């Protein structure tokens, strides 16, 4: 007898471990979005207006897209990857047009379709993965050419700067580990990568040092809120960054602003910390119920704080474990992929999800500065939920079509 799975040619299957992890995370997502919102959403609110119900709809839509994405072989889809890439670039340009792009919290990131607020930057991440995978899947010899490395860099830089202009530093930064991982896995010569990483590190260090310690005249112009987030992260007093001729009232305002800005991080830490080993139980989180954890962010960027307070360290580890299942089985999918294209797509997807998880949870426990990077499948929000499930769909597609028959 041959390998029994080899006989099963007619029905190549998807990876059910990943699906199980995804389903579990979605259950957690719906539960804790409900928990995070029930204090805000009064008892009179209709169920279809509630955030967790909307989220379940996104999950359903996303699962549908995931299924649809599994059907067509990724190699066929990749032919359209540049189309997707340029459509994404187009949407990133469109969103910057003041009449079209909707502004929330000082950033122009959304295209309001009425029933749905589309966030082009999220879809651009997926498009970039596809296009970059397609580009890097060419023979390794070609990748040695500096011109191709430059082209690859350009492919990344274009959406990177467009997203930065919105501004959405978090989403832009996520593109860096994703593309680096793909270039690395795609056998771009490591000397190029070393130079790239080294150069980028120097630039970033200089930037941070400039922002934190340079005298006023020498500072690079960045968005005020981004500077403040960095100052909060490095615990630098705002007053030092006030203009030299600042009045006492302005200094006072700067101090108050600092208290406000470090408030979210502080409250998130209290939430996570007071969860202890086993947590207070579902819907028993005081930080969230009493509103100390700001209600505007508790169900999206800081959903992990809600979860960590309510199900404690054990629950947090379970959630990270579920993500780990996706990451490591995702890497196995990459390893077993039939070709370099599939391998690169899988690496891109896994790195994207990993970057989000690490940055988001890191921000909740003050390992990372605050950036609006959502937690895949847990944070409420339509665009990124759809993108996460589409990404999982790509992964499953690579897994399903892993053998050439």
């Amino acid at each position: 007898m041959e390998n029994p799975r080899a006989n099963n040619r007619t029905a190549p299957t998807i990876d059910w471990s990943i699906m199980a992890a995804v389903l579990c995370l979605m259950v957690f997502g719906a539960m804790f979005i409900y928990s995070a919102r029930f204090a805000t959403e009064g008892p009179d609110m209709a169920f279809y207006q509630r955030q967790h119900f909307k989220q379940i709809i996104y999950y359903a839509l996303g699962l549908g897209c995931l299924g649809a994405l599994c059907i067509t072989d990724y190699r066929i889809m990749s032919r359209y990857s540049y189309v997707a890439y340029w459509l994404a670039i187009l949407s990133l340009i469109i969103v910057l047009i003041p009449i079209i792009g909707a502004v929330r919290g000082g950033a122009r990131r959304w295209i309001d379709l009425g029933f749905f607020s589309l966030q082009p930057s999220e879809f651009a991440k997926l498009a970039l993965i596809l296009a970059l995978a397609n580009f890097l899947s060419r023979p390794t010899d070609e990748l040695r050419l500096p011109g191709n490395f430059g082209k690859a860099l350009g492919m990344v830089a274009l959406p990177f700067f467009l997203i930065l202009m919105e501004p959405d530093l978090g989403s832009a930064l996520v593109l860096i580990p994703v593309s680096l991982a793909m270039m690395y896995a795609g056998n771009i010569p490591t000397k190029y990568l070393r130079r790239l990483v080294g150069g980028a590190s120097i630039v970033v260090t200089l930037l941070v040092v400039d922002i934190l310690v340079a005298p006023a005249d020498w500072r690079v112009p960045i968005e005020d809120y981004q500077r403040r987030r960095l100052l909060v992260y490095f615990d630098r007093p705002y007053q030092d960054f006030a203009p030299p001729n600042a009045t006492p009232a302005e200094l006072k305002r700067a101090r108050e602003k600092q208290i406000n800005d470090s408030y979210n991080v502080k409250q998130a830490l209290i939430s996570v910390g007071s969860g202890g080993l086993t947590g207070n139980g579902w819907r028993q989180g005081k930080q969230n119920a009493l509103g100390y954890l700001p209600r505007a962010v508790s169900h999206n960027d800081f959903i992990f704080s809600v979860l960590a307070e309510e199900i404690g360290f054990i629950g947090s580890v379970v959630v990270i474990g579920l993500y780990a299942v996706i990451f490591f089985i995702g890497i196995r999918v990459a390893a077993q992929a039939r070709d370099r294209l599939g391998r690169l797509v899988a690496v891109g997807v896994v790195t994207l999800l990993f970057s989000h998880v690490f940055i988001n949870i890191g921000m909740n426990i003050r390992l990372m500065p605050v950036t609006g990077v959502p937690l895949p499948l847990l944070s409420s929000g339509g665009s990124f939920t759809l993108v996460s499930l589409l990404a999982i769909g790509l992964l499953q597609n690579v897994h399903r079509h892993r053998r050439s028959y």
Partner: protein
Amino acid sequence: MFIFDQLKRDDRELRFLAIIMFAGCAVLITGLWYIQIVSSRHFEADLIGQATRTVRVPAVRGKILDRNGIALADNRPVFSLDLYLAELSEQFRANYRKLKAEYRPTRDQIEHVQRLARFQVVSNIAHQVGQWLEAPVTIDEQEFHNHFINLRALPLSIVDHLTLDQVARFSEQPQSLPGLDLRVAPRRVYPYGSTAAHLIGIMKRDDSSMENEDAFFHYRLPDWRGLTGIESRFDSEMRGLAGTRSITVNYLGYQTTNSFLREPDPGASVTLTIDLRVQMIAERAMRSTEFGDAVRGSVLVMDPRNGDILAMVSAPTYDPHVFLGRISQETFRLLNDPIARPQVNRAIYNHYHPGSIFKMITGLAALEAGQLNPAVEVYNPGYWQWKEGTRPIKDLAAPGMYDLRRAFVKSSNNYFIRHAMLPGVLDRLITLGERLHFGKKSHLIPGQDVPGNYPTKTDIRAGWGPGDTANLSIGQGAIHVTPLQVATMTSAIANGGTVYWPRVAAKIEPNDPESHIQPLYYRPAQIRDHLGASASNLEIIRQAMRADVHDSDGTGKAALTPGLTVGGKTGTAEVEKAGKIVDKITWFTSFAPVEAPRYVVVVMVESGEFGGSTCAPVAGIIYRELIKLEQSTGLSLSQLN
């Protein structure tokens, strides 16, 4: 790792990525372990710190009861209307939005407009409540803002002391406004007003923590500490232990839930030896002098058999309730009048020359020294002079022949001074004063009794002259006593020579069987000393005192009571200032019945005319009322006491 086994051995890149991700997950889990396990307590404390407020909730104060269990100080439910600000936050916001649209405030005006928005909401509610209660309700703007800033977690009291009518009117309102709550709180009340006010004492607002209570509170509800009288003497017993209420507040500082961390432990009740009926009789009698309500003086009714105080009056008096509220300027002026001094308990907290009432001790001393024969008549020229050229002490008793009885009845100065001058009498006098504990505190209410003055044996050995002895023997000069000391002295004469500790508190009993306060019983008839005088000599004094009331020419005949034998002694002490007589202290001290004394009545009036005309009638009224009381209740004297 299950992943590594399946990775192709030469797949360096994927292995590296897997290691990175593994490390990333490990970093996150380590971070979470540090925050959720290692530092968990710290963050829990932060959470409790920002989300809970503790409130000190005073315990219900113990009562003060008379010997028959009638409450002299009690607690009455008082209704107030509270406004819970948390339930108004929606309205605050809505009104602010409205005002913002109207005024378009600049950045600096925002706070002002927010304040205005809140105050408008609250004052509208107050106005509506005022219409319901048919009495205007106003809220002070500054007070409201202060409350909002500092006490946001606590309800704002908008109406204190609703009448029962108003409670009914409020309850009848079909729809209540949000955030309104009718609250019932105990409030100290003195059912008999100014009756025994000095003994009961007054209270002062004091929210501080007592021993055995939590020390730190975010807020403290109003509490009271006894400042004088029994309220202060047994303050810690009556106060009980305050409880701790824990309030959970949301991020805006509004109350969400509350519960007791520690229930208050109600205070114990104090039972006095005072008989309310006797007290009221004594107070009425005190007001019967020609001074009326303005009389300044004191009345004590004591049981000479055990030292129990049945009534303790100090006049003028005050309404103890005024100290529970804001004291108006006019009231404050009256309370601190330098002459009337209504806050002073004259029975124990002021001392006076006893004047002639001290002659009972002078006479006893002379008898005990063997220098006085009651039957021998002595000539009184109408004054007493030590030597030619010294200042004479005048005698209000007419010149003539006096034996002890006549000297007592007429209160002859000459007679008693002359005997005090005889050898050994002064020593006896000092000894008797020592045994009566003159010049010592009674400790009835620590800190609020004065010791008085009395010469010691050392005093009379140096710098002491015959004039001093003369003055002392007629209750002037070096002697000052409190009315309570006079009552103890008279009791000792009446009961055959036993000096009792005066007793005013009989027992302290907790109202709650689980209370931390142990019941405390003060036994009656605690002996402080013995006079050491012979029974026959005491009887001579008692009979002389009887004559003072019962003889037709006795100075104390105004105390004569049908159906009761009374022994008494009048006194009119002179208050000198720089050699001039500035005031008179009139006294009458007495006991009854003479055969088996059961009552001692001491009356002292400042600035009276004579002891016989000012004070003896007061005692007469008291005895007659006591007889009437006994007859109406059908109780014998012993049962009543």
